[in-house]
């Protein structure tokens, strides 16, 4: 009779099983809490750095930034960490003049939720920058939305002009089939990343429809802020 067989024939008491499991559970919980607490400051720092880098990426020419949260129809300045709120980041050049506003938006992609950041310039009334914050799109195909230079060129001057009454967009941003882009508000899609590039168009479309009129109305508010 070998070791394993001998052991299976002995039945351990329930209390012993329970104490062992609870004991291991306590050790494991302790280890997890320790590593969570130990890595938390660094993880938050890295995430904030990544967002910061992305913001400077989507607003050309900005030097300083301020973060605001959307409350109803108005924006309120925030500092430090804020969770679960629509945030916008206003960027200023070295003279404190507003050069653009970075907006976070998200929506369903091909594989999972896509989180993007785009820069809106209220003077040009156009989207001037784009960055993918979070994506699990297929490597080699769907992830072209992050890397394809031709696709990213769409967002260097994507028209987001407002209609006469300044309450709605003149044209909604939309993705069109690759090679058929005719108007400044259209996004030229990617062959082989149809769903992903269309998803970006949709996210941009719904976010700009909601945010751009609000941003435009509040542009003087953003402008005043740094002088106070």
């Amino acid at each position: 009779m070998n070791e394993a067989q001998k052991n299976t024939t002995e039945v351990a008491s329930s209390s012993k099983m329970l104490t062992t499991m609870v004991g291991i559970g306590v050790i494991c919980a302790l280890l997890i809490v320790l590593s969570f607490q130990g890595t938390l400051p660094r993880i938050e720092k890295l995430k904030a750095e990544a967002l910061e880098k992305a913001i400077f990426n989507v607003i050309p020419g900005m030097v300083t930034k301020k973060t605001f949260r959307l409350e109803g129809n108005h924006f309120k300045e925030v500092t430090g960490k804020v969770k679960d709120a629509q945030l916008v980041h206003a960027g200023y050049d070295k003279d404190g003049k507003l050069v653009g506003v970075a907006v976070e938006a998200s929506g369903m992609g091909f594989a999972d939720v896509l989180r993007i950041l785009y820069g809106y310039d209220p003077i040009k009334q156009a989207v001037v920058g784009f960055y993918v914050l979070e994506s699990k799109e297929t490597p080699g195909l769907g992830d072209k939305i992050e890397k394809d230079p031709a696709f990213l060129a769409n967002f260097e001057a994507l028209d987001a002009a407002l209609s006469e009454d300044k309450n709605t967009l003149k044209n909604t941003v939309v993705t069109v089939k690759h090679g058929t882009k005719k108007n400044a508000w259209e996004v030229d899609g990617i062959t082989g990343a149809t769903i992903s590039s269309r998803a970006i168009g949709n996210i941009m479309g719904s976010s700009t429809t909601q945010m751009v009129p609000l941003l435009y109305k509040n542009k003087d508010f953003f402008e005043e802020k740094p002088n106070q």
Partner: protein
Amino acid sequence: MNIETKNRANDGFWANLASSPSTDEFLKGLWRENPVFVQVLGMCPTLAVTNTAQNGLAMGLATTFVLLMSNILISSLRNVIPKQVRIASYLLIIATFVTMVDYLIQAISVELYKALGAFISLIVVNCVILGRAEAFASKNSVWKSSLDGLGMGSGFILGLLCLGSVRELLGNGSFFGIPVFADSFQEWVIMILPPGGFFTLALWLLIFNARKQRKLAS
């Protein structure tokens, strides 16, 4: 003492090292019982995250850490854990170390975490780890179990690197992110997609098995 005796002494040292039980325990996982090429275990991460050499290496290192730590803890608790609840206990221990690795990778680099994403938490169900816990760590001393964990982990890294470098080279034209070919090189995009993983694995298994057959025949 002339050079010849010195050489012989050296030979003796290497021969001793190679045949010592500790080295053998380590080499077993790295080569003779390689988890990827010989045992063909843990295929999910092997196929899924080896689209670049860097991802393969990072996944291999994460798995090795979990393998080593869980082997040590399970082996030191082997006389305490009742047989009836051993699998539950092993999973609890393995899941703990996976969670720790998850936090560690997030703390190392956002980019790396983006690339490995969901696959980190799937280390819990990597059968290499539960397999070593059940087959080895629960029956052997802490020292032997840690050697076994390190060996198997190194073998897993080797396997993932072999797949990752071939796939990145052909599918992306680079090695560890450094472009290797001229711009005129047309990437084989299929190599970094899931089918490429199967092709590359088949190729490596072919090479390994052909080598083994030839060795057996001679």
